[in-house]
């Protein structure tokens, strides 16, 4: 089962959306973290300058998580990290609607370069007064099932979102779906596992 081809998932979104937090909540290995002290006021002490890298295994599928930086000046990394990605998790902070246009630009930047299925994760659902996923779906003009509420600090919540993204990947890519076999139960959600190669 561990010989399955790894599935590359990219996590992107604006500054402070929770990309680094999300990768840290999910990874089963020590995360490669490239946060540096922020020299501007961005509402937090550090910011990602290269990438976050973590791994997890979901029912035998090794998943490689690549978090991007959020600041525009690192847009070359969005391009590099998205190469070969099978799924995109776009995160926005539910209490920062002012960042939604930026999130939309990142989404367009990435999806205009590679055709990749994506899930929009609205983080900070554990906090009061945040945008609900349904409203964010409306804002982004997306189907409600393409948007999910997340608490990126919780591994269970992050894992559920990842399972949902895998379902989208499976539905999206017929070639990938061809390589799927068997159903496995995970956290109450049924997902499929990749055939051994």
């Amino acid at each position: 089962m561990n010989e399955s081809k790894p599935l590359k998932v990219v996590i992107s979104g604006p500054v402070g959306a929770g990309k680094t937090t999300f990768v840290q909540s999910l990874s089963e290995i020590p995360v490669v973290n490239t946060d540096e002290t922020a020299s501007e006021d961005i509402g937090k002490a550090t910011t990602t300058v290269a990438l976050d890298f973590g791994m997890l295994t979901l029912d035998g599928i090794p998943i490689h998580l690549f978090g991007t930086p959020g600041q525009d000046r690192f847009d070359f990394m969005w391009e590099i990290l998205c190469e070969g990605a099978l799924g995109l998790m776009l995160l926005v902070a539910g209490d920062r609607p002012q960042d939604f246009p930026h999130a939309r630009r990142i989404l367009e930047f990435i999806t205009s370069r590679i055709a990749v299925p994506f899930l929009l994760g609205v983080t900070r659902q554990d906090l009061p007064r945040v945008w609900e996923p349904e409203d964010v779906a409306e804002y982004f003009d997306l189907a409600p099932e393409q948007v999910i509420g997340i608490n990126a600090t919780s591994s269970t919540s992050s894992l559920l979102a990842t399972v949902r993204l895998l379902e989208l990947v499976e539905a999206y890519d017929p070639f990938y779906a061809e390589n799927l076999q068997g159903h496995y139960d995970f956290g109450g959600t049924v997902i499929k596992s990749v055939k051994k190669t």
Partner: protein
Amino acid sequence: MSVGKQEALQNALKSLRIAIPEVRGALVASTDGLPMAQNLSGNEDPNRVAAMAATALGLGKRISDTLNGGTLTETSVSGTEGQIFLYAAGNKGVLVVVTPANVNIGLVHLEARDAARSIANIL
């Protein structure tokens, strides 16, 4: 950043270019990728160079950590037409030095490490 600091950084870059005339450009960036001082000869965008320098140095640090290389001091990129050396300037800055491909690397390191030390002190 204060005017005094800015000027001190510019002077450090200027002395570096005087010491090694072959140097095609030099820049100081913060470790989170913002340009702080520059002396580039071409039409390179300093914002982009600064961001890339921070990315390369940030990644280099983690590679060094992972392979037990200790604290990162420098990393470099070599192409057929030129070389780019990136030096950690304390824990706040990155010094970027662009040279032709056939430069005397020993001399570049000697001068640039010195410059990186004074830049670290300024910051």
